[in-house]
């Protein structure tokens, strides 16, 4: 009996291992068909010369959190990547440095918002699928865990997460880049508004995870330096739904403004409860609530909420001279068409920037990992993206800062651009 069990166990494991080995490459992830035909992609496909030969597809590895707590970031990122793949391949692919047209293959892996699964996914993409460039992941811990795999395998990696440690210290992050702004410039914009309004006492409440921590760190550093007193630095756990305790404490301290570090899942009920409890101080969120969900959920309570964010949300009200305006409007239209009318979010924008920069690199250098990295570090100049205008350099692997951000106020269920000269008004 015992021996038979052992034999059976070994057999099953051997079978599973064989099955695992038998799949050298995952099938290309097929994208759902967009409702309306889309036009050619932005920087990528030049007019497809009919006589161009067809080369092997260029492979991009894309690790994102489709499931788990970070899935509200991961899903728009994935949809954006699949949208771009669809656009580029419909246009015949991109023309590589060898003169041939190459289709692109974006291999999407779900890390379930888990650092060790992200590592494994990164290894699969780099080692087995042999991708030219690695994009991911949605969350900071998962991105940090992938850093080693990318570095050891000399593969360029573009993260879509916020923590500044992902690209710092830069000497150790030779291969790593990222597209979202760090939290520091976001805080800097909040600080400008506070200063313009003569506010010196604030209270803070934030989610107790990597995103909230990074944002709170930036706040504690910059506000203190500017002489703004932080009366309370409260936190809540991801998934919490009742914030009465923290808000009651804050209410008793009577701050002149309250800073929130959260995403819509918690940020929206928090904002509603803030009003219910009768707090009236101006509410400043950070860029975590930058999608339509927040307004849909918080409804009336969202009115008057302000937050710094990339220009995507207020693309329509930007002056035509703004170099990003055309790119932003096209992304909004394309994304809506591809996803049957979903409103775009800044998270999808981070994905757009990462994929499009990768495509620009592939177009110029082909799928050579070292050349791609060098291209990213030295050739990504004035790249007009969704989150900002990127200028990567040997000393800066983020390449966008405060200038890429605007202050947005929620008004009548929509977003309103607040120009810096209007900060003090109202």
């Amino acid at each position: 009996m015992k021996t038979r069990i052992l034999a059976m166990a070994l057999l099953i494991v051997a079978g599973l291992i064989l099955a695992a080995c038998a799949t050298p490459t995952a099938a290309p992830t097929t994208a759902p068909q967009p409702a309306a035909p889309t036009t050619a992609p932005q920087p990528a496909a030049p007019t497809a010369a009919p006589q161009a030969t067809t080369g092997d597809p260029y492979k991009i590895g894309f690790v994102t959190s489709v499931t788990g707590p970070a899935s509200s970031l991961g899903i728009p990122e994935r949809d954006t990547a699949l949208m771009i793949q669809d656009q580029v391949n419909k246009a015949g692919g991109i023309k590589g440095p060898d003169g041939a047209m190459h289709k692109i293959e974006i291999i999407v892996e779900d890390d379930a918002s888990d650092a060790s699964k992200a590592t494994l996914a990164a290894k699969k993409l780099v080692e087995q699928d042999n991708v030219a460039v690695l994009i991911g992941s949605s969350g900071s811990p998962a991105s940090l865990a992938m850093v080693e795999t990318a570095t050891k395998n000399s593969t360029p990696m573009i993260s879509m997460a916020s923590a500044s440690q992902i690209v710092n210290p830069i000497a150790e992050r030779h291969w790593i880049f990222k597209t979202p702004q760090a939290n520091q410039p976001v805080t800097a914009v909040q600080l400008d508004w506070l200063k313009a309004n003569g506010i010196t006492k604030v209270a803070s409440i934030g989610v107790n995870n990597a995103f909230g921590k990074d944002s709170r760190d930036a706040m504690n550093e910059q506000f203190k330096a500017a002489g703004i007193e932080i009366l309370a630095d409260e936190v809540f756990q991801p998934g919490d739904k009742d914030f009465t305790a923290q808000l009651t404490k804050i209410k008793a301290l009577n701050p002149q403004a309250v800073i929130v570090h959260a995403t819509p899942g918690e940020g929206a009920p928090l904002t509603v409860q803030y009003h219910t409890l009768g707090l009236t101080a101006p509410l400043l969120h950070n860029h975590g609530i930058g999608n339509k969900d927040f307004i849909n959920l918080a409804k009336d309570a969202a009115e008057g909420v302000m937050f710094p964010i990339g220009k995507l949300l207020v693309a329509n009200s930007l002056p035509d001279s703004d170099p990003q305006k055309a790119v932003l409007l096209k992304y909004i239209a394309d994304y809506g068409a591809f996803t049957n009318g979903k409103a775009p979010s800044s998270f999808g924008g981070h994905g757009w920037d990462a994929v499009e920069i990768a495509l620009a690199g592939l177009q110029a250098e082909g799928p050579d990992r070292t050349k791609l990295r060098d291209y990213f570090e030295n050739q990504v100049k004035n790249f007009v993206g969704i989150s900002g205008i990127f200028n990567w350099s040997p000393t800066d692997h983020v390449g966008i800062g405060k200038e890429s951000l605007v202050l947005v106020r929620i008004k009548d269920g929509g977003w309103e651009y607040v120009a810096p000269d209007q900060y003090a008004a109202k």
Partner: protein
Amino acid sequence: MTPDQLLQLLIAGLTIGSIYALIALGFVVIHNVSGVINLAQGEFAMLGALIAITLTGETALFNRAWTVNFNLPLFVAVMLATLAVMGVGALVYLLVIRLSHTNSVIVQIIITIGIAITLRGFALIVWGTDPYRLPEFTPGPPIPIGAAVLTRQDLWIIGSAFALMALLYLFFQRTMLGTSLRACAVNRMAARLMGINVSHMMLLAFVLSAGIGALAGIVIAPKTFMGYDTGTYLGLKGFVAAIVLGGMSDERGAIIGGLSLGILEIFAAGLLSSGYKDAIAFLVLFVVLLIQTTGILRRRRGIREAAGV
């Protein structure tokens, strides 16, 4: 903290605590009749709320491939959603639990974990990752009590939780069906000998628990909103509340456990540290457990069976 602020914390604790109590009650009803710890209890709450939300307004489903617009009145939507989740509860029993012939509690728990993962996955496919909001049952400004406030929805939450508990009490104590259910809980074999169809009773327990869970999810959805993963969080809290005072087999223990957990959490966050809120709540529960390892409200009889895995 001023008395008003303490009152405010108490209100918040009671509100969230009555939801924990309802979820815990769902655990106990199933466990008493069938011996199964149903870790998918929180998913019933999530499904109830999401279905009710879908029925009340226009919702885009399946990654926006299909937009539905029912626009049913709230009351009808709540009823239909509860019935639908009761149907899911019946399916869970008929398709899964009834087919599993194991006495191992661990194996049963893993089966219900499988159910929870599956239901959550389906919800993710149908509703996506976005949280949704159910309109308040009776919109209006909150009711001031001193400097503290009580929202109308808080009243609905606390009120319906207690009304449901009272109804369940009457059902268990005064109806033939309820008595049969209780008989199964006391001694399944004896109940069978008395001509009670135990399998039907288990089905009833699952349907009943699913209904309780769904209602809990629905009444709290206007306050906390609901996403595909909110159920996990509610289920975990309900699981703790169901065990800690009543050993998973005492309805009163589950209710008091849920209320105390809610109040404890809020007070820990308000008075001590919001970062360690859950840790403090758990530490207090540990101490309670250690002082009275058999569960505070547990009747002396049958302690071993109740607590033993």
